[in-house]
């Protein structure tokens, strides 16, 4: 799923300065799964913002709404009725949904309520960890199903750096596994350590954002 997290409350309050009627819009898909922008979070943040702004002397009215999917135009359309009543929108969806809302309601300022951080998995209750960085050149087949692009702090392609901690964690964070240690262990378990012995050449990053904004075209699906 796409993972996002609330921006710091002071940043949110500062961005809403001067607004009176605010639409706080969530999304019931990825950001709900990662507890950042689903209905529950929308309902939690609304009173918090209201109290925070009041404390700074600003009275606001907050309308809440959670869309099924904020990245689909037909769902975004549901906001058309509310939009005329507000002077700002704060969205708790990922950056994709936010942009669709911004595009549909071009006259209204749109403020991000969350920072979109990663493509991740809910590893444990309350813990999400990155899995993919949308690199555009998937190498999972060579790394025993574990992604070094997203999960190695240095996106190394050819094995662990010298920084792997003694307990197998990454040098950058004592709570994060060194993914290369795990890749090596999986290779060993399958008796295929030799697979990790060949030098993997430099990666072609051009099919990710590094090649310019991605545009994927499928002629057979065009109308």
């Amino acid at each position, binding site marked *: 799923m796409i993972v996002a997290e609330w921006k710091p409350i*002071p940043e949110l*309050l500062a961005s809403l300065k001067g607004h009176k009627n605010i639409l706080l819009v969530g999304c019931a898909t990825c950001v709900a799964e990662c507890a950042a922008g689903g209905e*529950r979070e929308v*309902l*939690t943040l609304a*009173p*918090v913002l209201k*109290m925070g702004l009041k*404390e700074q*002397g600003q009275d606001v009215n907050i309308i809440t709404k959670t869309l099924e999917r904020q990245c689909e135009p037909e769902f975004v359309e549901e906001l058309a009725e509310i939009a005329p009543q507000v002077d700002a929108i704060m969205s708790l969806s990922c950056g994709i949904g936010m942009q669709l809302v911004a595009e549909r309601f071009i006259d209204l300022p749109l403020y991000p309520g969350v920072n979109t951080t990663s493509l991740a998995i809910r590893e444990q209750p309350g813990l999400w960890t990155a899995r993919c960085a949308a690199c555009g050149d998937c190498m999972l087949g060579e790394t025993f199903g574990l992604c070094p692009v997203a999960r190695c702090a240095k996106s190394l392609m050819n094995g662990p750096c010298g920084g792997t901690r003694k307990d197998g964690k990454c040098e950058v964070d004592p709570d994060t596994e060194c993914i290369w240690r795990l890749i090596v262990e999986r290779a060993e378990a399958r008796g295929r350590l030799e697979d990790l012995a060949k030098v993997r050449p430099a990666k072609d990053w051009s099919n990710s954002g590094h090649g310019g904004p991605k545009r994927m075209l499928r002629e057979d699906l065009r109308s």
Partner: protein
Amino acid sequence: MAAAKPDPNFQPEIVVLYCRQALDAEERPPEGARQALGLGVRLVLLPCSSKVEAYQMLKIVEQGADGVLLLACPEKACRFLTGSLKAERRVQRARQLLGLVNMGPERVALRRVSGLSLKDILALAGQMASEVKALGPNPMKGDNLQ
């Protein structure tokens, strides 16, 4: 906001959310799920303390209550096993968020209790009232409060 002068007559309004299971078996809950009990105390009966979410407690404060007291069973005695633990986490979350907007985390609290009588509830509400009194009236108080 300038700190309000303490008003000696200020009587905090406390909303008590209490778990059905924490009530003494002999005690009949007041008719209806919501009921006012004495001055400035409102009761809300819950089938389990985990039935209340952080956003609901925040909403009650946003609507002007001076304090929200959640009465939950002891951790090991929860009839639904992890209900009162969940409740505790949610109270923590609500308190954290209240702190971030300078509303006073103390406005939301959890107490673990069992075999409660209505009298006990009143007493606990009274305690809560004296704890939040120092914060002064909830600045959100206004036309929201029914």
